[in-house]
Every structure is written in structure tokens, then in C-alpha cells.
């Protein structure tokens, strides 16, 4: 068996005390950084890059990768406890995670997140080990037209993610698309809606918007409510930390649906990991018997997106390593760490440096296991954060938000973006509008427009290109189906009722 001997080589690489400690260091730093609102993996990885000059390339990559998925994991803890997601995919987790935490079920929520992350990663790792050369081809099969269709699909799904009315969800997606227009037009280089501010020429900083509409808004919301210090009053018992059997049972099926979805989407450079969580959540709201539970603390609402986004996180290493094409800045940094040592990611990487590739895959599994083992006892500590009185907790949260947002681009301007979006977010929360679809609208809107324009350029203005390409046509068809599903369901139910 080829795969088994490859994996054996990988584990042989990782199971040395030195490599294990780099892996442990990576996931621990990543997790701690992820828990802090707004500070992403990028800040940590770019600071640690010079250290990797002196490490073995394989170990360097294992450490940096650990920071990457550790941070993603940590960010979901912060989203559940304090409603401060730093990425659009963590925003999905916050949709049901934060309500769960308000219901006093923060412990079980984190436990399920931990389990879901582990399950998602495991599934993705197995897929990657078995099919990595095939998977790389998938990334290349997606051209501009396909990406456009994928963005449409992602946005349609996002609109259904909003709890409550779908009209409001669509409205928020459109609001996100409009905000995404701010920046530089890709085909002409013209600045749009920048109001002469040079800081806006690359668009709004996503983390700043997210921290405004989630974290800062949450603080204002709590101020406007009656200030009751529930802090010391509540002591969490160990039994309350662990989900009940019924909870776990509820989480299993969503995890099984989300894992393949996340792995597949994660393979697409740049876009996949963001969409994965939204699509997984959207799928759950579609298959659920009672979709009104979502947004109020549904277990499926955290299990599915967490599984998907962790599966996607591992999947996103494939195009990076086997094509040498990084999907985002964090991946670019990891490529850099390899390049400096003369290890060239690309089609030949697996053949030339099997120990690095398989070692990394093995380290994913070990790193995720470390996160699992580390976090089960830590859940009690995380939950205790909630017992800090608000008057101490919220100033700290606000300060950390400022530090985190500043660290993204070293930009003071972004702090004003947080303030502006805190005001907007507060208004939105009064109007009961969900900010999560808006965030995805901002991210995907830019990519959707870019890819639409490119696809039209390449087809010399022929819109039929979107129907002629099979992947593209299927995705657009699915999007249409998603849109008319609620209508159709209502019709079916009406017919059913009139018959009865």
C-alpha cells in the first residue's frame, strides 16, 4: 500500500521529540493568538518567519501550519464566548455558538467545536493522503467562469444563513456587495467610493468590519441592557462543561455532511475556506426539520461550520504545496518559509521532498490531536472567562479588538472603521439584521465581480460561457435551486394541507 508507506514516512518524520515540540509550540501559540479578538495567524507567522531561517524546512512548515489551524480553532472559542469572530467563517460559528453560550452552554459548545474540528481535520487528512495529486487538478479546473458561479452559489447560501426572514438575509448580502465595491476597480485601476482616502483604495479591512459589527456591537448591546453583573454569581460545574448524549448525537450527522464539503471547497485557492462554513451551515438549515431553531443555539449550527472550516483549512494546503500557488497571505508566508530553504513547492514537491509533504500531513493529525487533548481540560478555563464581571471584561475586549485590528495592516485608520461599523452594527442589531451574510458579501462580492469581468473578457463578451462550461452551469443551477427551495417547499406544504 502506497498511502500507508507514505503515511508511515510522514509519522516517522514527525515523531521525534524536536519536531513534536515545534508542532506543540505552533498549535499552542496559534490557539492563544486565535482566542484574542482580531489578532490573526498572519501577525504571528510573519513575526516568526525569521526564526524559520534557522530551522529545518519541514519543521518550520509544521510549526507555521500549527499556528494557522491553531488560530482558526482559537478564533471559534472567542466567537462562542464573546461573539468576536475575526474571519467570516468564525462569524458563522458565532451565529449559534454565542446564543448557546448565553444559554449557559458555552462548555458543551466548545466541546462540540473541538470534536467537530478534529473530525473535520481527520476526514480532510485522509482525503489528502489518498487523492492529493487528483485534488490539485481540481484547483486548476476552476477558471474565472467557475469561480464566478461558485461565488454566486456562496452568496445565495449566505442569504439563507441569516436567522429569520430570507429577505433580510438577501438584503444583508446586497449590503455586503455594495461595501465590497469600495476600493480599486480591477480592470481600469479606477478608485471607487474611496472619498479621497488612500486607506480605502484596497477596500475595507475585513477584520475591522467584523470587529465592528460583531465584537464592538456586542459590547454596546450589553451596555444598553440593564447592567447586571452575572459574573461571580454563576459557577460552572464540571458536568455542565460536557455535552449531553443527545447533543452529541445531534452533532454527528452535520459533521458527516460538512466534512466532505469542507475538504472539497478548501482545495480551491483563496475562496474555498471562506465559503465552506457558510455552505455547510446553509445546508443544515435546509435539511433541518425546524429551521427556526437556528440562530438561537442549535448544535448543528456550530458542528457543521466548524467541521467544514477545519476540513477546508487542511485542504487549502494542497494547492499551496502542489501548485506552488498560495491562496492567501498566510499561505504565501508558509511558501516563503519553504522557498528560503530552497524547497520549491510545485508539482514536483511530493516526489522531491516526500518527507516534507507527508510529514506535514502527519503533523496535521498530531497537531489536531494535541488541540483536542489540550482543550478538553481547558474548556473550564475558557468558560470561566464568562464569569469575569462585564465592567472588567468589556474594556479588555475593546482594547484587544483595537490591538488586533491595528496589527492587521499597522493602520490607525482601520480603528475608525471599527468605530463606524460598531455604530452600523448597533443599528443593525436593533433592526434584527444579521451581520454574517454581510461579511461574506464583502469578501465574495469583490471576487465575484473580478471573476465575472475576467470571464467576460476571456469570452470576448459572450455571456453564454457560463452555461457552456459544465461545472459553472451546475453551480448556477444549484444556486437557483437554493433560491426557489423555500418557495417550492411552501407550495408542497400547501398542496399537502389542502389534500388533507
Amino acid at each position, binding site marked *: 500500500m502506497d498511502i500507508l508507506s507514505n503515511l508511515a514516512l510522514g509519522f516517522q518524520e514527525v515523531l521525534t521529540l524536536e519536531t513534536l515540540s515545534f508542532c506543540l509550540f505552533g498549535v499552542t501559540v496559534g490557539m492563544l493568538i486565535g482566542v484574542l479578538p482580531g489578532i490573526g495567524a498572519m501577525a504571528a507567522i510573519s513575526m516568526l518567519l525569521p526564526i524559520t531561517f534557522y530551522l529545518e524546512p519541514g519543521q518550520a512548515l509544521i510549526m507555521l501550519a500549527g499556528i494557522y489551524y491553531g488560530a482558526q480553532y482559537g478564533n471559534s472559542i472567542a466567537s462562542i464566548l464573546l461573539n468576536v469572530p475575526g474571519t467570516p467563517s468564525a462569524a458563522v460559528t458565532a451565529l449559534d455558538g454565542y446564543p448557546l453560550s448565553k444559554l449557559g452552554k458555552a462548555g458543551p459548545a466548545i466541546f462540540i467545536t473541538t470534536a467537530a474540528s478534529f473530525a473535520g481535520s481527520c476526514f480532510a487528512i485522509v482525503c489528502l493522503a489518498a487523492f492529493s495529486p487528483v485534488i490539485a487538478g481540481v484547483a486548476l479546473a476552476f477558471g474565472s467562469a467557475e469561480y464566478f458561479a461558485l461565488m454566486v452559489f456562496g452568496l445565495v447560501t449566505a442569504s439563507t444563513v441569516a436567522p429569520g426572514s430570507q429577505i433580510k438575509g438577501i438584503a444583508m448580502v446586497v449590503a455586503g456587495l455594495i461595501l465590497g465595491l469600495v476600493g480599486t476597480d480591477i*480592470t*481600469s*485601476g479606477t478608485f471607487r467610493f474611496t472619498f479621497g482616502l488612500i486607506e480605502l483604495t484596497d477596500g475595507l479591512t475585513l477584520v475591522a468590519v467584523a470587529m465592528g459589527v460583531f465584537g464592538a456591537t456586542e459590547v454596546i448591546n450589553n451596555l444598553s441592557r440593564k447592567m447586571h453583573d452575572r459574573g461571580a454569581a454563576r459557577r460552572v460545574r464540571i458536568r455542565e462543561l460536557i455535552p449531553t448524549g443527545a447533543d452529541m448525537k445531534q452533532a454527528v450527522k452535520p459533521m458527516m455532511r460538512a466534512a466532505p464539503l469542507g475538504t472539497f471547497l478548501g482545495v480551491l485557492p483563496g475562496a474555498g475556506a471562506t465559503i465552506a462554513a457558510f455552505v455547510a451551515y446553509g445546508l443544515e438549515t435546509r435539511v433541518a426539520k425546524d429551521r427556526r431553531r437556528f440562530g438561537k443555539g442549535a448544535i448543528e449550527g456550530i458542528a457543521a461550520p466548524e467541521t467544514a472550516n477545519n476540513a477546508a483549512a487542511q485542504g487549502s494546503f494542497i494547492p499551496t504545496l502542489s501548485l506552488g500557488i498560495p491562496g492567501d497571505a498566510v499561505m504565501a508566508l*508558509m*511558501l516563503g518559509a519553504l522557498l*528560503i530553504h530552497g524547497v520549491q513547492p510545485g508539482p514536483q514537491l511530493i516526489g522531491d521532498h516526500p518527507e516534507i509533504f507527508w510529514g506535514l500531513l502527519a503533523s496535521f493529525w498530531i497537531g489536531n490531536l494535541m488541540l483536542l487533548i489540550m482543550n478538553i481540560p481547558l474548556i473550564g478555563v475558557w468558560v470561566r472567562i464568562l464569569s469575569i464581571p462585564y465592567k472588567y471584561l468589556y474594556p479588555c475586549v475593546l482594547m484587544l479588538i483595537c490591538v488586533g485590528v491595528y496589527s492587521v495592516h499597522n493602520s490607525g485608520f482601520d480603528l475608525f472603521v471599527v468605530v463606524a461599523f460598531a455604530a452600523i452594527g448597533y443599528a443593525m442589531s436593533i433592526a434584527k439584521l444579521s451581520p454574517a451574510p454581510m461579511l461574506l458579501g464583502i469578501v465574495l462580492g469583490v471576487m465575484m465581480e473580478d471573476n465575472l469581468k475576467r470571464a467576460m473578457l476571456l469570452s470576448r463578451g459572450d455571456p453564454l460561457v457560463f452555461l457552456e462550461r459544465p461545472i459553472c452551469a451546475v453551480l448556477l443551477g444549484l444556486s437557483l435551486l437554493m433560491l426557489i427551495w423555500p418557495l417550492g417547499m411552501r407550495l408542497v406544504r400547501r398542496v399537502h394541507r389542502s389534500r388533507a
Partner: protein
Amino acid sequence: MNASTTRRNTVKTIVIALGLGTCLTALPAAAQFPESPVTLVLGSTPGSAPDILGRIVAEGMSEVLGQPVVVENRQGANGSIAATQVAQAEPDGYSLMLMTAVHSITPTTRSDLEYDFNEDFRGVGMVASVPLLFVVNNELGTPDMASFVERAREGDIFYSVPGIGSIQQLATEEFADRAGIEMTVVPYRGGGNATNAVIANEVQLFFAGIPPALPHVESGALTALAISTPERSPAAPDVPTMVELGYDGLVADNWHALYVRSETPDDVVATLSEALNTVLARPETAEMFLNVGATPWANSPDEQTAFGHGEVERWRNVIDEQGLTFD
């Protein structure tokens, strides 16, 4: 001691501390430069080629100067946010700027810059050149430049660029003009996406960086027809230069160099230049540069300043001749 005297003492301490701080920063020449950390500002994201080169140089210079050289990423607006920040910093040598070829293009393409590249900055020294490979997708079936030009005359050639107003776009336009062919530009966001496009055969041509393109040239997906630098690169020794192929003066050097504000004292610039060139002369620096597809390139502050002025001139001519517009 009552509360008000405590407060007064606190205020006094703060005032003295602030005063001392001001005095110290006001006397830069009195002590040996540098006596506090130096910031190296660069205008692109972590993980980009300038970022990696900047971090390698910063790491080495920290050791030579005996003070940490801290990299600060201020991406945005094609590097002009970073340049604006350094142009507005104190001219004391504590704010270094890693300029790249794009900074010699924006003075022509952008009318709203808040700094003047030629007037506000002076060179410390060149860091490296990042050669660009002229790669075409293998399915085009053109193994050399002559056959490519012939094929391109039939039309239907798309080329990718990492952004409008990039050195890749200007160089490709200049090439097309010289070769007498017409091609359609398809803009992507960033070099990674633009490289991906030519590998996937969505476009047929791209001026790519060596590290992302070379493995695909070796695997046979891409063909490298030329290199954009005046000389061949040791990373791809078989690829001829544009000049060798008869395109005289067709050079697109994606250079990376350190700059400071033009009012910075000469002795400070000399110290920085010496430290930079010490780092560049080390074999391990050269090796790391080569691994990331860059060629080390050292010069003096005056040579760099003059080189920068020449580049602004060169790209202005290309833009005028090709009649390109950017707003």
C-alpha cells in the same frame, strides 16, 4: 502625603520623562547611529517577494547594526501608503523604506501621490533584482520566441497581470509593441492568481516570478521563452534575455532597494549603506535570495538615487509611448 501631592508628583514625573524623551530624540547626531530600533517599512503583504527579501535583509542588518530592524507591512495603493508614511517620518534614518519597481511607475500612473519619489527620497542601496520569466502555456505549442511571435500575429492571445499599472503589464505592452503583435490584458489580483491563470491555460502568457513558475516549466506545463533582466539568472541559466533575442533595451528589472528621506544626514546613510552591503556580501544571504528567485545586487547610495531617477524616466516613456491610461 495626601492625594493631591501624589498626583502632582506623578504629573511632574511624566513631564520630566516627556522632556527627557524630547531631548534625546532631538539630538540624533550626538550619539552613534542607531541607538534605538530601526523600522523597515514595506508596501506589500506578508509573504510577498518584497516582504521575504525585506525580512532577510532586516534580520541581517539587525545583527550588523546592533539594533533590531523591525519590518512593518503597510500594504495598499500599490505601495504608496507605505511610501507616504516614510515620507512623513523624521529624516533621521530610523524609518527605512523598501521601494520596488512599482514605486518608479506610480509617479506617472497616479496623480494623487502625497510624496515625490525623486524629491523626497534618497537611496541607501539596492537589495536585489527579481527577474521575471516570460512564460507561455505549453498547449500553445510555441517552444521559442520566434514561433510565439508568429502564433501571436494570428491573434487570440490573452496575458495575465497581477494588477493594472504593474511592471508586468508595462513590460508586456512594450514587448507587444516592439514585436508588432496585439494581445488582450486580463487583470488578476496578485502574482499568485496571475501565475495560476497561465498554468491553467486560462491565459496564454505571463511575466512570472521565477519561484512559482520554474517548477511548472520543469514539469512541462509552461515554456519559459525569455527573462526580463539585462543578464541571465543563475536560477534559470538556460533562459535567454530579451536583449539576446533582439529586443534591445527591453529590460524589466523588478528591483528592490532601500530608501530614506532625502534630508537624512550623510553619515547616517553611510552607516546604513555599509550595514546593507555587509549583509548582501554574505554567501548565506545570496543563497537565500537565490532560493526565493532574487539576484543580490549591491551599489552605493548615490548610484541608487540616480538609478531610481532613471527608472521613473524609463517607465514614463513606456507609458507615454504606449498611450496607457490608469484612471
